[in-house]
């Protein structure tokens, strides 16, 4: 009976703690040896491929490994376990020495850890380990990588593992192995691999090649070309997407203006602040969900969208009733008054929420992205915003063409007096239309809160850009607004890749100024014969 209990206890200990049956001599060498011996010990651990060495190496990497006499301890705070047996050590021995690792050793430890983690059961852990290893592949890890490859079933991890194996085999002595490895690497498309292959075709300063073997060089050049082509393609896809993404953000910011400025002719300099209010509304909804409905936190955005719309629309309606209404027909005065409103709104937000940016968290389903290529990842948040912008655009087009309010708005835009004569309540239509435009600004704020900082100055960053979109697109034209927004987005991103962000912005502004000289009415001008254009 006693024996049975003892057996159970031993088994329990085995399962509760990672069973430590590491080679005592290797561990001791790792802890007390000089740096070459440590390095040897590391290689031995990796070759052995024992997953039980992981906590030991983690402790070494974190600087938690200490020695007390001949015992090797993992010390966390005032808790310590024996690195070899995994037993709790209490009380802590008073005399302890830190196991120091220099930078070279640290790198080796990181590589060794990654190699050992390749055998872990979690896919994410394996993938992360493989990616780390890809950056710093060590020949000692080759058997482990091969072993992992034999067992690996996940395609993504396999692809990375193949790359690792190939990049290690490039350095092998056998020409055939090297060429085969280079050939396999041509399928990879990471900048790291490109660099590795690049070293093979490099010339030394004296004109000779760094790589003596001509066949290997030829093969490397061929692989490099394939990789470059793929990387360039990936870059183009990335640029295209960031162009679309910026365009959709501009579109969201400008759509509201397309109504208030484009259709109603009101210069609303506080439009940016309505965007900002939408972002703050999203922030408040997020906080409310966190406080009262933490279980549904991931879905707060769905609730924030209508709230942001409603809050901004209400503020917009109030502005229209209180201020803008009295300034119709005096656009320059409207500009100044709404600027004043924007200053007050900014300061109000500073008073209410502080001048610092507030934190708006992405819901879990929006983090991460679609990896089109290893080097090109499209973040979900951006993708969602592109889709959202498209949805808002469609909804707005439908609202303008299919609803009674839209009919009224278009009627009042074309001929206010006539519309009034046939019974359109023009004053009320103004308020509703302005509220609609403001609400869309709120939606833009809700979207922007997911990808940028939310602070009192949020709107200022977008006001000039969104006016540019509307001016470029032409007044009173949704299609013009869309094309102008996407066009400016693309132009900005393409120029950015070529000349840097600031110059790109300046170039785009200069282009708009020149363009307006040629077509003062924007891309899509309403034709007419009026001398007062």
């Amino acid at each position, binding site marked *: 009976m006693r024996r049975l209990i003892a057996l159970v206890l031993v088994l329990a200990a085995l399962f509760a703690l990672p069973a430590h049956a590491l080679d005592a001599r290797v561990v001791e060498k790792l802890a007390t040896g000089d740096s070459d011996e440590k390095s040897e010990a590391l290689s031995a651990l990796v070759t052995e491929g024992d997953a039980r060495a992981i906590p030991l190496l983690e402790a070494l990497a974190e600087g938690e490994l200490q020695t007390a006499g001949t015992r090797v301890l993992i010390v966390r705070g005032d808790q310590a376990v024996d690195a070899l047996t995994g037993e709790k050590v209490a009380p802590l021995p008073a005399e302890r020495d830190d196991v120091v690792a220099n930078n070279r050793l640290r790198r080796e430890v990181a590589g060794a850890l990654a190699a050992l983690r390749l055998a872990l059961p979690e896919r994410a852990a394996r993938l992360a380990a493989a990616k780390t290893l890809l950056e710093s592949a060590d020949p000692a890890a080759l058997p482990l990588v091969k072993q992992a490859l034999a067992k690996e079933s996940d395609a993504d991890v396999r692809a990375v593992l193949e790359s690792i194996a190939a990049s290690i085999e490039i350095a092998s002595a056998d020409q055939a192995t090297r060429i085969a490895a280079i050939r396999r690497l041509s399928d990879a498309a990471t900048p790291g691999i490109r660099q590795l292959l690049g070293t093979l075709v490099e010339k030394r300063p004296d004109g000779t090649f760094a790589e003596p073997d001509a066949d290997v060089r030829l093969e490397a050049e061929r692989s490099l070309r394939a990789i470059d082509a793929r990387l360039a393609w990936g870059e183009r896809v990335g640029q295209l997407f960031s162009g679309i993404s910026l365009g959709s953000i501009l579109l969201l910011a400008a759509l509201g203006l397309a109504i208030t400025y484009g259709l109603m002719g009101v210069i609303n300099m506080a439009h940016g602040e309505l965007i900002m209010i939408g972002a703050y509304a999203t922030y408040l909804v997020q906080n409310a969900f966190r406080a009262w409905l933490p279980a549904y936190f991931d879905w707060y955005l769905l609730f924030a969208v209508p709230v942001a719309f409603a809050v901004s629309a209400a503020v917009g309606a109030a502005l229209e009733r209180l201020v803008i209404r009295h300034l119709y027909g005096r656009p320059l005065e409207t500009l*100044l008054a709404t600027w004043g409103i924007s200053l007050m709104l*900014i300061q109000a937000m500073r008073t209410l929420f502080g001048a610092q940016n507030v934190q708006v968290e992405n819901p879990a389903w929006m983090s991460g992205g679609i990896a089109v290529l290893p080097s090109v990842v499209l973040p979900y948040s951006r993708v969602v915003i592109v889709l959202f912008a498209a949805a808002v655009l469609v909804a707005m087009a439908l609202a303008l063409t299919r609803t009674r309010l839209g009919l009224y708005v278009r009627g009042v835009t074309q001929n206010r007096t006539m519309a009034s004569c046939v019974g359109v309540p023009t004053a009320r239509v103004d308020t509703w239309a302005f509220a609609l435009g403001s609400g869309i600004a709120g939606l833009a704020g809700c979207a922007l809160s997911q990808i940028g900082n939310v602070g009192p100055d949020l709107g200022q960053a977008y006001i000039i850009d969104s006016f540019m979109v509307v001016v470029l697109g032409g007044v009173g034209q949704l299609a013009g607004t869309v094309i102008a927004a996407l066009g400016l987005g693309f132009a900005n991103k393409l120029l950015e890749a070529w000349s840097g962000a600031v110059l790109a912005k300046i170039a785009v502004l200069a282009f708009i100024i020149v363009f307006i000289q040629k077509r*003062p009415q924007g891309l899509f001008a309403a034709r007419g014969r009026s001398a007062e254009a």
Partner: protein
Amino acid sequence: MRAPDARLAPPLYGPKGWGAIGVAALVLFVGVPVANLALPESSALHLSAYWITLVAKIMCFAIVALAMDLIWGYTGILSLGQGLFFALGGYAMGMYLMRQIGRDGQYKADLPDFMVFLDWKELPWQWWASEHFLWAMLLVLVVPGLVAFVFGYFAFRSRIKGVYFSIITQALTYAAMLLFFRNETGFGGNNGFTDFKRILDIPITTREMRMALFCITGAVLLGTLLLCRYVVMSKAGRVLTAIRDAETRVMFCGYNTLHYKLFVWTLAAVLSGIAGALYVPQVGIINPSEMSPANSIEIAIWVAVGGRGTLVGAIAGAGIVNGAKSFFTQAFPEYWLYFLGLLFILVTLFLPDGVVGLARRLFRRKAA
């Protein structure tokens, strides 16, 4: 002396007006220097350096406000780019002042400090001849004028007007600000120019120098007032007012409005540039934030508060708003933006003719 023909050239001001200008000149050129330099600091009438700098600053702003009144109040073109011309004039002056520092900078080098910091070996081309005072003066006049002339020519030729023009000028200012924020542009990036030591080899921080700059600014302000008055009273000025009220009709009468608008737009830019050049040595710093769109819009509210189309109102407005600004930013920094925002709204809603219009209405009511 021949009596001036009243129809062709009406007098600039009546006797009362000239009297007021005379009093102002007396105060600026005699009263203030005496109060600052001659009276001991213990005297109740002593003006401290703080006040001298503040008033000088406001006078610089008043010059810009006059230019704004010319272009907006009289011609009806709301420019949101006046801050750009102000800053260009300031930068032209600042370049000269930077060269005057000589080897007294942090790095004891021939080049301005920021260039040493950026590891530049020689002056970029923009700085050619920047050590000459007269060249700097020429730049102060020519650079804002040229930018305005070229921009205005194209804008007015394609008949961009109203809010379109305002927004485009705002974009221009914004683009210029981004450009000047770059180190590569060669004007000190976001730090701009500061730490000036001398002007015309005379130390800049002495009381006498401060007073001299103050008096020059006052003289330029009065001169600008008279010049603007002359312009708006002239026949061309009448055409400008007509353009404001009915541009199409003026065109149909056979006037080429492009010429008139371009003239007043360029003149306003040059005046703003001069104001900027006076501003920089007295405030001791110029950086790209002077070009921020918000600054340019603020200039419009000075004129609106004072009263558009009155010239005197522009000066009064610049004084009132900036006086309030320095009061608020010291006493209640939290509330300054509320006040400014409210000012924008209330003035446009309830005081379309500004303070001067209000005063006129009150006096007329009293007289009646």
